[in-house]
């Protein structure tokens, strides 16, 4: 039944894909090539859960104002982190022995709550909250309203991969936001947290922690830090990414930082592949 396709295929690659093995490295190499930038003007901005949203109005209100002020000049796809309630849910799940995939479902609910809260604060500006199933409408909203908000968790739910170590879902809201930036070929990926960027240790716990303004993924992995400012999965995925070859981490508690990052200024920490 396979042969009838042969004449219909566009190219040698098409023939090889239909008849060959997708585990053949030679065939996989043939599938490389230039990739469209689907939304080249969009900026993906992830708002931290524990670091920003859990602080309430003191952190969130100024940030909302700054986001709105930037919309005339920048298209923004906002993702949200989960934060302390996810940690509570994960703690209960660990105690009960629930699998990583179930923990992923629980984390999704929390980042969805955070997206809904930010959505209501942005509603009067016409910014919609979209769930994964509504992503086909995202380009329209970006053109019409300049912004859109989604929950940062990738929708892996029960299909979340186990981590190599431990039980906490390895692909959380940093990863989900990064993959949106990557697949759409977005202009930037900005992580809004409550630290100035990357440090040699957790600055909340270690006063000797040194700030790192710019670093490559390989340098960062080589340092083998005890703690990281973004999920390790983001660093792994960056190495394979077609478009999103850098990410920026900024302190959203400092007014003006997000504007500077959107304008492409050097603020916070820039992590690059190349």
């Amino acid at each position, binding site marked *: *039944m*396979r042969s009838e*396709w042969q004449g219909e*295929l*566009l*190219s040698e*690659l*098409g023939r090889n*894909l*239909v008849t060959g*093995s*997708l585990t*053949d490295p030679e065939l*996989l190499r043939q*599938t*490389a*090539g*230039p990739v*469209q930038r689907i939304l080249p003007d969009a900026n993906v901005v992830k708002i931290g859960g524990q670091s920003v949203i*859990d*602080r309430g109005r*003191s*952190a969130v209100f100024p940030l909302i104002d700054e986001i709105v002020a930037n919309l005339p000049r920048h298209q923004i796809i906002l993702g949200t982190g989960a934060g*302390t309630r996810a*940690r*509570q849910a*994960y703690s209960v799940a*660990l105690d009960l*022995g*629930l*699998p990583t995939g179930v923990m992923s479902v629980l984390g999704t609910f929390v980042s969805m709550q955070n997206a809904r809260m930010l959505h209501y604060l942005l509603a009067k500006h016409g910014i919609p909250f979209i769930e*994964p*199933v509504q*992503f086909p409408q995202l380009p329209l909203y970006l053109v019409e309203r300049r912004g859109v908000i989604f929950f940062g968790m990738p*929708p*892996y739910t*029960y*299909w*979340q*991969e186990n*981590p*190599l*170590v*431990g*039980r*906490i879902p390895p692909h*959380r809201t940093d990863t989900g936001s990064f*993959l*949106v930036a*990557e*697949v759409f*070929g977005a202009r930037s990926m900005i992580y809004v947290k409550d630290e100035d960027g990357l440090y040699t240790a*957790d600055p*909340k716990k270690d006063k000797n922690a040194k700030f790192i303004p710019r670093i490559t993924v390989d340098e960062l992995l080589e340092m083998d830090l005890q*703690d990281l400012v973004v999920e*390790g999965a983001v660093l792994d*995925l960056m*190495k*394979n990414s*077609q478009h999103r070859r850098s990410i920026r981490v900024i302190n959203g508690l400092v007014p003006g930082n997000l504007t500077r990052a959107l304008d492409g200024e050097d603020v916070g920490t820039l992590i690059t592949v190349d």
Partner: protein
Amino acid sequence: MKGSHALDGRHHVDSLLMRESLLDKDLVAATDEHGPLVRMLPEARVLKIGGRSIIDRGREALFPLAEALGEALATRTLIIGTGGGVRSRHVFSIGLDLGLPTGVLAQLAIADALGNAHILGTLLASHGVVAIPPEIFGHLLPFFVKGAPGVIFNGDPPYSIWEHPPPVGRIPPHRTDAGSYLTAECFGCKTFTLVKDVDGLYTADPKRDSSASFIREIGVSELRAKHLPSLPFDEILLDLLERSRLMTRFQIINGLKPELLAPALDGEHVGTIVHAG
């Protein structure tokens, strides 16, 4: 709420992980020290029916297999994933030609496996076994398998545009073998069986190389060390097996020999077993 916001300006909920960075290595490692994982569906058997290897062959392969599935369903709960087969390969080739990214290819391929789930579902409908829409499949799976002897789903994991860019090329790495395996792992099922059109794993492709020798059982590290030119399953299964907690092995069987199905579902060794480690 004891976890006050006076401490660091963040409103916390008291918990084990409160105020912690989930990226801290010690903290992450400590989460392994909790009790055994819950097995949600310990009696269910998960299997993946190959798209190109079985379903695309049509009647000659699928009718005898559907009959064997029907017999197996009489005494077992089956969760059946399907591959997308040749239509997925075709849509990949068009998508690649148009310069579409990996995530879009992953999203497109879901439709092919879902079509095949409905094809198989038509053949098994008389057993009450049908294709379940992916939107409700995960959350309602335990409910469905209490009411029916089995379910069919598109084997894809719901990664869609959130698919990971692969190290080489642009083909989505998490395809239907991976999605079906992850179902078995997360739900703590009894066995995971890949139903293909070869007896199992060979040192070379037996369709092209008559000197290929059969591998009856092998661990992930040993298999990686062999650097086989191609594998009869999605390569990412090896990564997933390395990280397994509940489903630490899978078996590849030849679906053109339907008599192997029932023993494989029960864990008997009738094909190639690949195990963690």
